[in-house]
């Protein structure tokens, strides 16, 4: 093939079809469905803003689920990132056998969203499970993890923090790319390791922190497997996150229109959060090349 200005587009053909058909088309359709009443049996019937009005004025489940979602995101995202960064920092030490430790810390993340992990989690936090056995051993009382709202939320937040591996790997790559001279220069200036972390490492990492933050945020807002498999959304809907509500509206109640409206509200919320982050990023994200 001759090299002309369309060669690149030729390689993009599958992707172009894909983005039109699997992204743009369903994206617009879900917006349309959100203004309809559609049970899959009849044609969708246009009902204007009714779904949204119902959601905001006449659906306590929506508010409960919105609150649970925000709570989940606010606890999971920062804790997971701090933990991932801390471990990546340690994994970057030049020690013998560090490869073994990197693998060990990464294993829970490879197992990921496995149903088996949900079995494990239920099993750890059962009233007579491992966690309570350990608490009893140190003389503390058992905790009813799945019977209290905060306990149940804690278990699904902890599940995701335990799987900090992908964020850690991204941090680890970035850490290994920080120029060594920066540390040498600052240690000549007499900076302690602690000081170096805050005045060299952290600023150098801000673009990666930003990337990870957005990725984790989008992911956390869509959390489904954890609450669905581990807590079942309970107790008292305290872990009934929006994606689970969206799933049940669509595939249990076959209320496709309402479910579409819920997913659009979730989408707008993610957009608001990411836009705020993008807008504030110029204040704290530092690009070595001045930003391109």
């Amino acid at each position, binding site marked *: 093939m001759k090299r002309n200005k369309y*060669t690149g587009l030729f390689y993009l053909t599958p992707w172009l079809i894909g*983005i039109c058909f699997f992204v743009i088309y*369903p*994206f617009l359709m879900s917006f349309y469905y959100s203004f309809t009443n559609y049970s899959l049996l009849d044609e969708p019937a246009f009902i204007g803003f009714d779904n949204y009005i119902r959601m905001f004025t006449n659906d306590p489940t929506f508010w409960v689920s919105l609150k649970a979602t925000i709570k989940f995101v606010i606890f999971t995202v920062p804790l997971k990132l701090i933990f991932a960064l801390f471990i990546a920092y340690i994994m970057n030490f030049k020690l013998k056998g560090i490869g073994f430790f990197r693998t060990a810390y990464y294993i829970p993340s490879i197992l990921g969203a496995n149903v*088996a992990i949900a079995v494990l989690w239920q099993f750890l936090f059962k009233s007579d499970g491992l966690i309570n056995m350990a608490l009893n051993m140190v003389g503390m009382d058992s905790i009813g993890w799945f019977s209290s709202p905060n306990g149940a939320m804690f278990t699904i937040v902890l599940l995701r923090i335990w799987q900090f591996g992908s964020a850690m790997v991204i941090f680890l790559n*970035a850490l290994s790319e920080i120029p060594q001279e920066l540390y040498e220069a600052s240690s000549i200036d007499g900076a302690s390791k602690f000081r170096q972390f805050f005045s060299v490492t952290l600023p150098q990492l801000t673009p990666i922190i930003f990337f990870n933050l957005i990725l984790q945020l989008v992911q956390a807002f869509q959390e489904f497997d954890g609450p669905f498999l581990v807590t079942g959304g309970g107790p008292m809907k305290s872990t009934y996150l929006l994606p689970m509500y969206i799933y049940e509206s669509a595939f249990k109640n076959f209320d496709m229109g309402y479910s579409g409206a819920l997913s659009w509200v979730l989408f707008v919320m993610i957009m608001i959060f990411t836009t705020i982050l993008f807008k504030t990023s110029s204040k704290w994200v530092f690009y070595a090349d001045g930003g391109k």
Partner: protein
Amino acid sequence: MEQAINFKKNRNERVKKKVSVFFKYFLLILGTLLMLYPILWLFGASFKSNTEIFKSIWFVPSSFDFTPYVEGWKTSSQYTFSTYFLNSFSIVIPKVLLTLISCTLAAYGFARFNFPMKKILFPMMIATLFLPGIVTRIPMYIFWKNAGLLDSYIPLIANSAFACDTFFVYMLIQFFRTIPTELDEAARIDGCNSFGIMTRVLVPIIKPALITVALFQFIWTFTDFQGPLIYISSVDKYPVAIALRMALDTTSADFSWNKNIAMSIIGLLPSILIYFAAQKHFIGGSTAGGIKG
């Protein structure tokens, strides 16, 4: 005298260093235990009797009994786990292969060419990276329903043929960018066309990245729960993830934890095996190209 002071100073430094190394290893080992003990305990529990499981936090069973594995494999349905594993692989294998082909093409197109509309298409690609998939789920379900393809694997696989796993496209672009374009030019002078440059020059170089993509796609597809939950309704087509969940649902009086745990361990094995098989390339690959924000 001065020498003695120096010697003492050096010795103090050495001791200090040793203490710090010791402290680091101590932390690392403690962390490893915390991270992996739950899995180890799960593994041990798969050999224990149902009454023994909840008696001790020690993971080693009093005797190794393989009955939970044998019984668990049979399942309470009419199909054994052999069926569910075959089902999982008939989703995973085509999906991994299609992802590798379609994402390499797309990444090559973006990384190596200038074309009209690139200024619109590239940001669009980045935007889909952050687009919540949940918004597109319901219309896609309705589409596949109208196409009469519910309860088949096509809805689970199709998007991979069209490079819709944006994360992989993005990752491969980053890898392509680390390869100097002089290589392309040299191959062109030798008479290679652009397709030949991709297949003969660039693909061999980014092999570690492709292995990483295959590894992630394998694990994500194998463990995917929501996709099959929505699309697959006949038991004989269930993949492992759904079969495990179904086993959990049997809330009979003699709910056997050990059988479920044994099958969960089996369900974890493919991910662990493939990770260790690909690990050398995976770690090398992830540091060679890396993901830059």
